[in-house]
């Protein structure tokens, strides 16, 4: 049965490849010469075409992020299960994949609706995009037809391939490769709109397409989205587990969903740590591509958007750390021992958040501004610049990582002789890194912006990455042979901890909607920056209040969609108590 399906897919794939290879570039020229529709825009009453596209595109992208992020850590979980021979990881990976399978069809459906909306509402833009990118549309379709059967095989073959794990893992890798390629093809279209390159008539057809695809922000966005998808997937799985925990009827269920929530949150946080660095690279490329666009984002009408971003990321850091601390108190019962550290870390996080949220110029009446001597507060104004913000972001990352290390080490007694030296070494590393980040931050006020951006900020980032990459394996080696003094108890977390998981997922979704708006709005009145001007009535970018309300609406619709899909997916599991329910008694003894 499978082989006949495979033949069909292979035939289709070969057909698509054939179309690609035989594609005649001249036909594009012909299409341009004969001319297309004279309609440039279509609208819908009341809600407006742009808002329709906004809602559909946003929800599609959130779903897409989820279905591309989940296979990454699903595969990692499965691989850990194979390596450790611990069946719980395999079951967890399967449960993650179940959520993925449920969301996959909806993602494709929304993608189709989005395409119809773009063709219908923005024919002028879509004609141009088709002229530039048509072969990539075929490639996109081909990749989808490769990914879909791979996903089916991966999901439906899970139990059948229990004895052929190597093949199953290979399918998981393929799934990720196809998913990643689908994402980067679609990213090429979106990034071309923001940072198109100059193509000339003398360039060869394929060279032109490649130049349009390989535009300056393509790879920064690819990497940024790849990481962000993992973060989104992790936090959504965490929220799913949180909701299931709240409704759990038995201690077994609670233990399982507590563990799943922990893993989801862990994935989200670990993904989140390098995300600011990827964002920094993207912003740097934007500045290099077009300084005006960078200024629009960071100093122009979108500058206040970054205050909203700071609030959200601050809430996320607090929520993630709060969850860790609750775990420390309830799962390991080591809260009293770490109280001092928790209070110190909370203080540092709140102070850092305060600095990050300080705007460059304050909202002040004329009278207030006169009293201050301008719109910059004489003291707080110092915190409104990038040097301060880069510093506190790095400090917050270090603190969050420290929270995790504390949680990781709690209830364990090291047995290796060099453990003490390793712990001291890690502590010294943290201390020196924090000092170096702060020194570079303060120094950054006294050097030209280009020096700060090119050298100081990157050094800060490098130092923090170095700490993460050094401390993780070092502590891992210490903990690997450690003796457990206090068993990790699963299923004993208070209900508020599960709300923290839901909050984290909501914040991440809002962050993605917010930054998506920033990326789109930075083009301002251009469909394709500097190439095709938006001449529709919606050429303006709405103010952040309107946009914020819209983001909240989109996030809510998405979460309701996801809840419904997961609820439907969970109906099947209820009827098979023995087979799919992953963690049972053994989960109670699981440490992380």
């Amino acid at each position, binding site marked *: 049965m499978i082989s006949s399906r495979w033949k069909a897919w292979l035939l289709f794939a070969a057909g698509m490849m054939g179309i690609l290879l035989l594609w005649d570039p001249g036909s594009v020229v012909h299409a341009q010469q004969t001319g297309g529709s004279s309609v440039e825009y279509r609208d819908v009453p009341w809600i407006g075409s742009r808002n329709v596209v906004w809602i559909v595109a946003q929800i599609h992208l959130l779903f897409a992020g989820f279905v591309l992020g989940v296979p990454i850590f699903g595969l990692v979980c499965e691989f850990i299960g194979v390596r450790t021979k611990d069946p719980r990881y395999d079951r967890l990976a399967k449960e993650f994949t179940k959520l993925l399978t449920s969301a996959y069809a909806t993602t494709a459906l929304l993608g189709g609706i989005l395409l119809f909306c773009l063709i219908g509402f923005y024919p002028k833009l879509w004609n141009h995009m088709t002229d530039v990118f048509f072969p990539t549309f075929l490639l996109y379709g081909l990749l989808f037809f490769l990914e879909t059967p791979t996903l089916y095989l991966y999901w439906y073959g899970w139990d059948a391939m229990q004895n052929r794990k190597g093949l199953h893992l290979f399918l998981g890798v393929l799934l990720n490769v196809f998913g990643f390629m689908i994402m980067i093809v679609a990213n090429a279209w979106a990034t071309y709109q923001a940072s198109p390159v*100059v193509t*000339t*008539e*003398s*360039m060869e057809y394929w060279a032109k397409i490649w130049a349009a695809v390989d535009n300056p922000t393509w790879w920064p966005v690819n990497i940024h989205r790849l990481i962000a998808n993992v973060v989104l997937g992790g936090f959504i799985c965490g929220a799913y587990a*949180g*909701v299931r925990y*709240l*409704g759990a009827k038995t201690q077994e269920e609670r233990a399982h969903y507590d563990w799943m929530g922990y893993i989801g949150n862990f994935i989200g946080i670990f993904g989140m740590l390098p995300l600011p660095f990827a964002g920094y690279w993207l912003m740097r490329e934007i*500045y*290099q591509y*077009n*300084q005006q666009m960078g200024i*629009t984002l960071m100093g*122009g*009408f*979108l500058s*206040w958007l970054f*205050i*909203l971003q700071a*609030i*959200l990321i601050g809430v996320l850091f607090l929520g993630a750390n709060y969850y860790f601390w609750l775990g420390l108190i309830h799962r390991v019962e080591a809260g009293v021992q770490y109280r001092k550290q928790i209070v110190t870390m909370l203080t540092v996080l709140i102070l850092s958040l305060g600095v990050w949220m300080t705007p460059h110029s304050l*909202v002040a009446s004329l009278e207030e501004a006169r009293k201050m001597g301008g719109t910059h507060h004489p003291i707080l104004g110092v915190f409104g610049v990038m040097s301060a913000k880069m510093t506190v972001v790095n400090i917050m990352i270090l603190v969050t990582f420290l929270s995790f290390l504390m949680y990781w080490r709690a209830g364990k007694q090291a047995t290796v002789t060099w453990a003490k030296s390793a712990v001291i070494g890690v502590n010294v590393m943290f201390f020196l890194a924090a000092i170096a980040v702060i020194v570079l931050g303060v120094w950054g006020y006294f050097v030209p912006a280009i020096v700060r951006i090119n050298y100081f900020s990157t050094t800060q980032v490098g130092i923090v990455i170095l700490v993460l990459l050094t401390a993780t394996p070092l502590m891992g080696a210490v903990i690997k042979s450690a003796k457990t003094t206090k068993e990790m108890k699963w299923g004993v977390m208070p209900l508020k901890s599960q*709300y923290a998981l*839901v*909050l984290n997922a*909501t914040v991440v979704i*809002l962050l993605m909607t917010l930054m998506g708006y920033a990326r789109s*709005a930075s083009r*301002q*009145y251009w469909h394709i920056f*500097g*190439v*095709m*001007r*938006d001449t529709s009535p919606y*050429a*303006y*970018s*709405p*103010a*952040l*209040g*309107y*946009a*914020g*309300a819209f*983001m*909240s*609406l989109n*996030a*809510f619709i998405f*979460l*309701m969609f996801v*809840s419904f899909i997961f609820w439907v997916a969970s109906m099947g599991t209820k009827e098979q108590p023995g087979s799919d329910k992953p963690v049972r008694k053994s989960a109670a003894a699981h440490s992380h």
Partner: protein
Amino acid sequence: MKNFIKVVLFVAAFLSLFAFIALQIPQQASLPPSVEKFDPSKIKTKNDLVQIGQKIFYGKGQCALCHSIGHSATARCPNLQGVGGKLTREFIYESVTQPQAYTYMDYTYSPPKFFPARMPVIVKPPIDLNNNELLSVMSFIQSQGGEVTIDPSEIVVSDGGASLGEAGDPASGEKLFQKMACSKCHAPDRFRERLADRDEGMIRQAILDPNAGIRIDPKPVHKGFDRQLTVRDFNDLIAYLGRLKTVESNP
């Protein structure tokens, strides 16, 4: 189900809070700029031509997306500083209208390939400069270290252009006065007093070049409006200020 409803309410409350905070910060929509109008009647001297060319260079022409004037580490195309002294008018014209006409060979390939110029044809869409705009940009390029050989008389003036000194419309001028937010600092009631002892020439100069030395304040709050106003707008504004002054003297 009860727990799920609680979670939904929790999420809805958080999202509402976010929307509320977003509404509390300064609200500023980004409106598309009005389409730049090329006003040939403004061009009297070669310097006028160069100034308009500069505006197009950084605006509609999109030249500055790739070219820089002076060294730039991020510019993707040649630095145009000093090229006016090196290139002839004909060469500049050909470069912007037929960028592929003289291109270098790339000898890293064997056999060598033409090195395709990244320069788009600026008299074709999407940039699509008209002849007047093209001449202005060329003047600006010539002014970079060279002598401007393009004469303002080459600019084609249409009949619809207004010229300086024509009588303006005070009502339109009043609207413009409000639109450009002049009234924020120059409240009309008090502004009359300041206008009383100034003749039209001084008012014109103060609008176009506040640094001209007729002001007492050491630091003018705004720059000149010579690049923001069309001739017609300028005439309208002068007409409105003249009326404002007259109302003061004949209450």
